[in-house]
C-alpha cells in the first residue's frame, strides 16, 4: 500500500471532563477533521495506563493520541500532571523499542476548544500517514 491511500488507525484516549467535550464541541460546531481517530472516553488522562498504549499497538493501531485538560485544570487536580510525566517517559522507552516519536502524542484540549481538537487530530493523522503502517516496519522473525 502506498502512503497516499494509507488511512491510519489512531486510538484516542480523551478525558471525560475537557477533551471529550472538546471533541463534542468540534462536532457541534461542524468543524471538519480527519476521521482516523477512534475515541475512547476515559475519566481522566491520568487513567491512561501505559499498558493501554502498548495494547493499542499490539492490536493494530498505527498511532495513539492522548488528550487531557490543560495543566492546572484537571478535574482531579493532579491526574494530568501524572500523564505529563508518564507519556514522555513512555515515548522515550518506545523509541528504544523502535516506535517512532510521532506515533504517540499527548496534548491538552479544553471543553471549549473544538477547533484545537480538530487541528491536533489533523496534524497527528498527517504525521502518522507519513510514518506509514505500524506493522509494516517489523521485518525480523519471531
Amino acid at each position, binding site marked *: 500500500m502506498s502512503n497516499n491511500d494509507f488511512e491510519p488507525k489512531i486510538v484516542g484516549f480523551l478525558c471525560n471532563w475537557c477533551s471529550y467535550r472538546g471533541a463534542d464541541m468540534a462536532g457541534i460546531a461542524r468543524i471538519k477533521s480527519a476521521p482516523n481517530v477512534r475515541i475512547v472516553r476515559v475519566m481522566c488522562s491520568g487513567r491512561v*495506563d*501505559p*499498558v493501554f*498504549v*502498548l*495494547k493499542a*499497538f*499490539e492490536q493494530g493501531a498505527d498511532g495513539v493520541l492522548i488528550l487531557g485538560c490543560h*495543566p492546572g485544570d484537571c478535574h482531579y487536580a493532579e491526574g494530568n*500532571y*501524572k500523564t*505529563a*510525566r*508518564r507519556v*514522555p*517517559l*513512555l515515548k*522515550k*522507552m518506545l523509541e*528504544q*523499542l*523502535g*516506535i517512532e516519536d510521532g506515533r504517540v502524542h499527548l496534548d491538552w484540549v479544553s471543553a471549549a476548544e473544538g477547533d484545537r481538537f480538530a487541528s491536533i487530530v489533523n496534524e497527528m493523522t498527517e504525521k502518522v500517514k507519513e510514518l506509514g503502517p505500524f506493522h509494516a*516496519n*517489523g*521485518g*525480523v*522473525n*519471531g
Partner: protein
Amino acid sequence: MAKLKLALYWAASCGGCDVAVLDVNEKILDVAELADIVLWPIALDFKYHHVEAMDDGSIDVCLFNGSVRNTEQEHIAKLLRQKSKVMVAFGSCACSGGIPALANFINRDLAFERAYVEAPTNANADRTFPQLLTKVEEGELELPEFYDTVSALDQVVAVEYYVPGCPPPVDLILKVVDALATNSLPPPGSVIASEKTLCDECERVKEEKKITRIYRPHEIIPDPEKCLLEQGVICMGPATRGGCGARCILANMPCRGCFGPPAGVYDQGAKMLSALASIYDVKDEADIARMLEEVKDPAGTFYRFGMSTSMLKRKRM
C-alpha cells in the same frame, strides 16, 4: 513408589540456575533419593539420543532453564516436552526471556557484529561469522541456526509451572521438590512464588512516595531502613512478584525485577514506568525533561528480565 524420572536442561542461560539446584546443599541427596536424573548436560554424561530413545511422557518432570534463541534449543525444548509429563520453566530466562532477551533490542546480524567483530577481545579482520554448514575434509559440520528474537519457554512449548528468579531461590526449589515428593503440585499454570508484589514482603519503612531526583545505584549509599524508591533509587518492587525473600533489598540493592510481574499484570515494564512517573513529583517541563535524563535506559531497566514476555516482545526494526 517407583523413583521419579527427572530431566534438567539449559538453553540460553548462564548456568546459574543449574548451580542454584546444587545450592540446596545436602538436600540434593533427598532429590537423588526421590528421582533418577535422566538428563543434566551440565553435570551428567547423558546424550540427546538417550532421551530420544525414551517413551513419550516417560520423564516425570523436566526443569528447563534458559530462554530459546536457536534451533537446537527449540528442538530440545520440543523433544523434552514430548518426553515429559510436567514441564517447569525454571528461572527468569525460561519464564520471561531473562538477560539473554535484552538481545531483542537488536537482531542476529547486530549480535554477531558485536560478538565476533566489535568486542575488544576479537581478532577477526576477515569477518568470519558462524555458518550453518561448513565443509571440512572429514565431511560437513552443522551449527544450530541463531534467531533474531529470544523467546521464553512457553512461547515455544506448553509449560505447566513457572519457578521465577535469577536464579530461583533455594526455598522455592525445595518447595517444588517437596510438592513432587508428596504429589501435591498446584494447578497447572501456577507460578511457584508469591501472588503479591515484592513491596508486600519488603520490611523497609514506607512513607509517602514522592521523589524529585533519581539516583543510579553507584551515586548513593541508601539508608538500609527506608524504602529505596522513596530515596530515589529505581527499585522494581512495585511491579515485581514477591517470593524471593527480598534478597537484593536485604543487601541494600534495589529490586531489578527478576521474578517478573505479579499476578494479574500483563506488562511489568509499563507498570513500573507508570509507577515511577507517578511518584516523580514535579510539574514544570524543565523538571520533566530532567526526569527523562535521569532515567538513562527505561526499556532496559523496566524489562531487564522480561523482554520476551513483554507486550511488544522486541524492538521493531
